[in-house]
């Protein structure tokens, strides 16, 4: 059986098949690269604020916060906080984002008022996502292991060495509204 296969593969008629395989392989690489490049493009701040829903609301608010401008000039852009770094998680988020494209097409959020009305439900999904992954995106930049408590303020040290260190709470439990205005916080834990 194996031997039969081998003679078949060596025969001239199979040259065509080799050729097709090679093309397929090269094509795969190009497609893969292209796919990832497309992913890269959609992973930039420019892309996110290409939609007025994002530009006029969350982006304008974020411009006043520490993650847009600070003394060290290191920035956190939209995808840094909203798109997972791990490839599989990223794909999942990208697929979930088709809802955003749908929202765009159907004009879910045309005005500031519509955005504000919609904010609580969007924020809740983001909080849940971050709670579930233990604020992974924050931790990509802020590593608890390397936080120098002697450089932090009293309040930070108290909270970080207690609830955070013990794993009882995660960043997003205490740092809601770090980059945007908040929705009505009635009933939200700790508000």
């Amino acid at each position, binding site marked *: 059986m194996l031997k039969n296969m081998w003679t078949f593969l060596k025969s001239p008629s199979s040259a065509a098949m080799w050729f097709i395989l090679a093309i397929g392989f090269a094509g795969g690489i190009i497609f893969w690269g292209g796919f990832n490049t497309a992913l890269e493009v959609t992973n930039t701040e420019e892309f996110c604020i290409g939609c007025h829903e994002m530009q006029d609301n969350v982006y304008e608010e974020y411009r006043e916060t520490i993650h847009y401008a600070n003394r060290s000039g290191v920035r956190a852009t939209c995808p840094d906080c909203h798109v997972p770094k791990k490839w599989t998680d990223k794909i999942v988020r990208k697929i979930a984002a088709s809802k955003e494209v749908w929202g765009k097409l159907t004009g879910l959020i045309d005005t500031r008022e519509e955005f504000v009305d919609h904010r609580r439900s969007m924020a809740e999904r983001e909080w849940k996502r971050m709670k579930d992954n233990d604020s992974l995106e924050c931790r990509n930049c802020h590593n608890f292991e390397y936080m120098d408590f002697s450089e932090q303020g*009293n309040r930070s040290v108290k909270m970080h060495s207690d609830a955070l260190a013990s794993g009882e709470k995660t960043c997003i439990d205490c740092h809601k*509204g770090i980059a945007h*205005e*908040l929705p009505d916080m009635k009933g939200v834990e700790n508000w």
Partner: protein
Amino acid sequence: MKLLSLLVIVVTTLSINPIVKAEETAVTNVNPGGLATIRGAAPLEETREAERLKRVIKDKNPIARNYVHQPPVVPHQTRGYRVDKNSNKCLSCHSWKHAAETGATKISLTHFETRDGKTLSDVSPRRYFCSQCHVTQADAAPLVENTFEPVESLGNE
């Protein structure tokens, strides 16, 4: 007819010119006359260079009050803390509900009273906007010398 229009032109130019002149002199000759505010003297037509921004102190322990009923000053940074109809960042630590856990000073019960002395079950609207009375402190020298002595009863040395 021609004469009339000429007359009109002459009269209008004559009447406009002095006004313009007066305005010019008014602007160029302003002199503070030796008067100065605590921020220094600047002739009106000049824009003074802005003062450098003062740095807000980072976290500190509570700062003693100087007199009875003084709104305590804020001993920490509050940059980016929003207080609006949706959320109140200050109360997320200083409210009675959270103060025990966060270690923050509780708001006083006067904050639950309306202006005609009724006590409400939550913070009174007139006390909701914290930074109207409580301000962060900068590391800055006093602009004017003064001889104020804080009251002893509040734990000042």
